[in-house]
């Protein structure tokens, strides 16, 4: 009986201090893993992939959405003081989809403060 209890104590549930360390490591490692995932995705980038939110012929919203998402992501991560590399995915996608003249017009509008979207 005592032997069984000893066995259960040693080989089953980890003690509290180890549990704490494991959960902290998990939080840190998911952030790092996400950044690594995005890096890997960016390295393998060919062109904007199929986006199920915009399955049809009209891709205007797809371009607009990614442009907004990039600048919102930049603004949010800058405000937190974190590396903005994950935002690069949105940049690659909007650069693939949006006509150069639209991007230039929107960039000028953002500088002037007349950009119609909410960033």
């Amino acid at each position: 009986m005592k032997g069984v209890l000893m066995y259960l104590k040693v080989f089953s549930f980890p003690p509290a201090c180890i549990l704490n360390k494991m959960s902290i490591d998990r939080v840190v490692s998911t952030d790092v893993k996400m950044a690594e995932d995005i890096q890997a995705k960016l390295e393998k980038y060919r062109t904007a992939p199929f986006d199920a939110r915009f399955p049809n012929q009209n891709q205007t919203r797809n371009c607009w959405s990614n442009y907004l998402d990039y600048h919102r992501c930049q603004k949010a991560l800058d405000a937190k003081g974190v590396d903005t590399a994950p935002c690069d995915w949105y940049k690659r996608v909007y650069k693939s989809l949006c006509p150069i003249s639209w991007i230039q017009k929107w960039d000028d509008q953002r500088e002037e403060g007349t950009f119609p979207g909410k960033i």
Partner: protein
Amino acid sequence: MAHPSQLGFQDAASPVMEELLHFHDHALMIVFLISTLVLYIIVAMVSTKLTNKYILDSQEIEVIWTILPAFILILIALPSLRILYLMDEINDPHLTIKAMGHQWYWSYEYTDYEDLGFDSYMLPTQDLAPGQFRLLEADHRMVIPVESPIRVLVSAEDVLHSWAVPSLGVKMDAVPGRLNQTAFIASRPGVFYGQCSEICGANHSFMPIVVEAVPLQYFEKWSSLMLEDT
């Protein structure tokens, strides 16, 4: 490209256009058969000396000429719907090109990696070399890698235009402020011609589209040369 006294479609350069061509052959054959039958019956009725004033009805023939047309319509509808759904499949493009319509030229943008953009004007007739096609040649062609799924996003900078290449089975309206998506695969290397397909002013007939499909290494070489030039 189109040739003089052409009756049918241009040779297909993409799998979808091949399907459309075969479907058209199938539907046209059915149409010819029905028309021949009707014409025969008309001639036979008109040229006979026999008369029959006493037939009132006939259940059998009524059944036949109801069921048979319904069956023929199904025979046409099934391949038609198959192609419709085939054209609507989700594809995974390797390359995205933007075709922007202007008065009166097209401009192409390849921005997946670097910002490559260039204009494509029709070659004036007096500047054509021997063997080149009048009103179809352009100074810069839209070069694509062969056998790769390509996504083309068509839009316009001023008025309505339409980007069409018949041998690839592609036509998409260019609407200012809107990004219209179409996709195709060039199944063989070659040069494919098209013309603006939406009236857009004085030189609407003089803004052709030329697509050149080449193996991938040549496409990569071409795009680096174009980047150096611009």
